[in-house]
């Protein structure tokens, strides 16, 4: 058996979140879990190739009850959430521009009308009172009322969450399956033409700005070839549950999903590739070969399943990131989801709505990080038994 070389790309391996304009992920990474998660994925530990699963750097080396482990993780997540909530209020208060004056711009509005708007929005109260109202609201599940839509922020987010889930989940499934599948073949045939092509193509897509790729796809397939719709989720007037409606939604889904997948599948490919390369060093593969299994079976039944382990954490982390990354794609393709809602809120500026989407995006990422920790513990017996 040849000695596997260390993945030449590991230094280049993407570890920058989703690669899309992403207001959610930045400030939401104080969570120790996420920092560790990406350290794990970066796999920058060639000195210890025999232990690819030793990804959880601050994991207690010897056991510890699951409850304690879970509580510790939960505590970390809760702290992150509190930070996000506080930050969510003050960060947007620092944005330039007065929402009321922006609304009043170029309009014949009397000072009395402007004052009335200010009081309707609660902007005439001292900041500390506004902050208190906001905290009380969050505790009671009330994220306030949007300035623009004059509707409860929680209700708005509920309405827009569905399309975002549909878009990102479809993209996530395709990106993960495609990335992992190409990644394992690349690793198995390292340095082959396939490997070089697959790795470099994915990295090219990875470095392309999402909105640019989206626009190019839109122009080619929407405008010039006229194969696919240029925006929205469904043709107005169609019933989304009728056969024609479902086909219509799928048609609307193709371009945004392709844009999202093209940009993110590289990270899954690279992680899988690196992980499998590490695995190929292992003695058990030699044993498997000695049993007379074919190369294909060795890869599929022994190497790949083990190599999948370290990728699971990363996959969860990136699902969270993917949802936040939908902001750009939704804006390009007018996809009526949370990303577009956030985009509109920034244009406002609609402070309660911005705060609300920020908190929700952050919560999704924090929950995904937590889930990554928990799932990993379940999946990898070494973490449990050690």
């Amino acid at each position, binding site marked *: 058996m040849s000695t596997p070389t260390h993945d030449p790309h590991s230094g280049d391996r993407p570890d920058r979140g989703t690669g899309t304009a992403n207001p959610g992920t930045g400030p939401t990474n104080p969570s120790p879990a996420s920092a560790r998660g990406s350290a794990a994925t970066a796999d920058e530990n060639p000195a210890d190739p025999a232990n690819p699963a030793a990804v959880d750097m601050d994991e207690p080396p010897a056991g510890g009850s699951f409850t304690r482990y879970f509580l510790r993780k939960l505590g970390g997540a809760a702290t992150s959430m509190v930070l996000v909530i506080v930050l969510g209020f003050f960060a947007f208060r620092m944005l330039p521009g007065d929402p009321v004056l922006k609304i009043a711009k170029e309009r014949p509005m009397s000072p009395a009308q*402007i004052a*009335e708007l200010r009081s309707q929005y609660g902007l005439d109260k001292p900041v500390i009172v506004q902050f208190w109202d906001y905290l009380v609201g969050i505790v009671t599940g009330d994220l306030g009322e949007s300035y623009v839509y004059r509707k409860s922020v929680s209700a708005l987010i509920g309405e827009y969450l569905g399309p975002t889930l549909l878009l990102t989940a479809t993209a996530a499934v395709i990106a993960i399956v495609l990335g992992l599948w190409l990644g394992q073949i690349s690793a198995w045939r390292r340095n082959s033409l396939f490997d070089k092509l697959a790795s470099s193509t994915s990295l090219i897509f990875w470095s392309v700005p999402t909105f640019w790729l989206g626009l190019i796809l839109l122009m080619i397939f929407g405008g010039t070839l006229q194969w696919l719709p240029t925006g929205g989720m469904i043709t107005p007037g169609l019933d989304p549950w009728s056969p024609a409606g479902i086909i219509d939604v799928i048609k609307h889904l193709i371009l945004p999903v392709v844009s999202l997948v093209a940009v993110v599948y590289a990270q899954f490919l690279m992680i899988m590739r690196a992980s499998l390369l590490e695995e190929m060093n292992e003695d058990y593969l030699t044993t498997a070969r000695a049993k007379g299994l074919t190369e294909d079976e060795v890869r599929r039944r022994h190497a790949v399943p083990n190599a999948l382990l370290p990728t699971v954490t990363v996959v969860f982390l990136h699902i969270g990131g993917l949802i936040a990354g939908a902001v750009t794609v939704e804006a390009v393709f007018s996809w009526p989801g949370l990303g577009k809602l956030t985009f509109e809120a920034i244009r406002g500026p609609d402070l309660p709505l911005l705060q609300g989407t920020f908190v929700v995006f952050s919560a999704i990422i924090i929950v995904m990080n937590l889930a990554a920790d928990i799932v990993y513990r379940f999946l990898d017996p070494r973490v449990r038994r050690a």
Partner: protein
Amino acid sequence: MFTSHSLRRGWQRCLAGVAALALAGSMATSPAQAATSEAPASENVLRIATDGFIDSFNPFTSFYLVPTNTFRYMYENLVANDAKDGSITEGLATEWNTDSEGKVWTYTIRPDMKWSDGEPLTSKDVAWTYNQMMEKEEMAVANGSLVENFDKVEAPDDGTVKITLKKPQANNPGQEIPVVPEHVWSKIDKPGEFKNDEKSVGSGPFQLESYEANKSITLKANPNFWRGKPKLDEIQYRYYTNSDAQVQAIRSGEVDFITGLSPDQFTALENADNVELNEGNGRRFNGISINPGVADAKGKEFGTGNEALGDKKVRQAIRAGIDTETLRKQVMQDYAQPATSFIPAVYPDWALKSDNSVISGFDVAEAKKLLDDAGWKEGSGGIREKDGEKLQLRFLTDADAPIEQSTAKFLKPWMKDIGIDLKNESSDVDTVSERTTKGDYDMYFSGWSINPDPDYQLSINTCGQRPDADGNGGTSQDGWCNKEFDKLYQAQHVELDQAKRQDLVQKAQAIHYEEAPSVTLWYPNQLEAYRSDRFDNFTKQPSDGGAIANQVGYWGYSSVEPVSEEEATGGGMGAGGWIGIAAAVIVVLGGGGWLLSRRKKSDDRE
């Protein structure tokens, strides 16, 4: 090591979870959509791309552009602004007159009019609407300023409305206030919070049928519209966040009308099949506002404007140093009209005449002379100095606006030519807005949309309209104040003789021009496109070379007719699309089959 089976099972569970998420997502695509599930009753639907904000369709409270434009179609006003030139024409009222002072306005309402639900429409509805706005603060949010001068509004009989004003005014007070049906609105508990976003009752050519936030707005023709039922059955606004997507959508026939195109987008559509372009003379101006030393309404100065700009000679020199014609041709690619002052040329009665003696053109020698006269002498590096200080100015622009950025690029060397060191400070639009309200600028790129009557735009150039240092209390165009201008404003405000009023407006603008608190650069054309294979007979305002969308009135789409029924099915995916999808299906199925066959073979070997 772990068994491959247990691991695969775990992995499969993860995938299943993600798939469940996807399914949940698709289920959550909201029952609200099912509400509008019926396919459009007719293909005679004009589909318009939009990206505007909508808070509600309540004409008393909503002030964003899209709803305001929609109200113009949903609710008739007492008097309308003509498509021809924006002048006052019949609305609900057939005739109107004022007393000699301009204080009591009497309107005769057209008899036998009906609301879209068939109920009779009388002067009582008009009086009720106006009184709501005058009596209740929450009903005055959107248009309160229009009734500020109203003392009382009465309906002595079904056919007469009498408006008594606090102070005389020449501008017809019956414009731009949507009149709503009393029999609907008086039954609503909290009319200030009413969203009015489905099946509206109104008197205009189209009525709101349904609205889905960030997805679509559907308007239906009103059979009872007093000018006659429109030929279009429906207007449907579709949401496109991004203007490039709108361009692709009209190219592919997904929408029938788009507006607000950039010169580049407009040029790109020149050769598109079945797309007709309209370069409409717009009702906007763009200019460079020069900080004349902004002060609050009491005259207390604030902000960080360069003191040099307090001298009108310096401001005039800046104008003389700007070649507006080159800017118009290069930056706007000729898609703009030459400008004089802040009333655009689409209102020829009011716009400052280009032969007015006050108007001076691009003249570098004159600019240098003005700066010399102001005491700014040429110093080192060609930059002028006075009392040891260099003449350095900041030009504030929106970093995301290509037109502002290009203008700044032209301005820098031009200002250097006359001895001014101009620094381009580009920022996001919110910062620009915040800094300009606080007077934290020397020059900035500005623009306004102007209504057919010049009163409002003149009013925001008066001294009393200046805000305080926090930006509260007023809306000033340039933060400028001039007593003589104020007198002319007041004089035209009450002048009932149209010719005399025009003269006063000309004089007021001439003073503004001479004082140069801003340099008007051009009147941008409104660039629009429509599907000529589906619809024609759009009405422009002004009818000679004007724009279709964003009119002051309901002309643009009311006259539209479908080209022919066979061609009106549009939008669908062509044969090419189906071939493409079929090819994709074959590739996917083929690939899957190949993978399966490989797996089977290896399984057999085990």
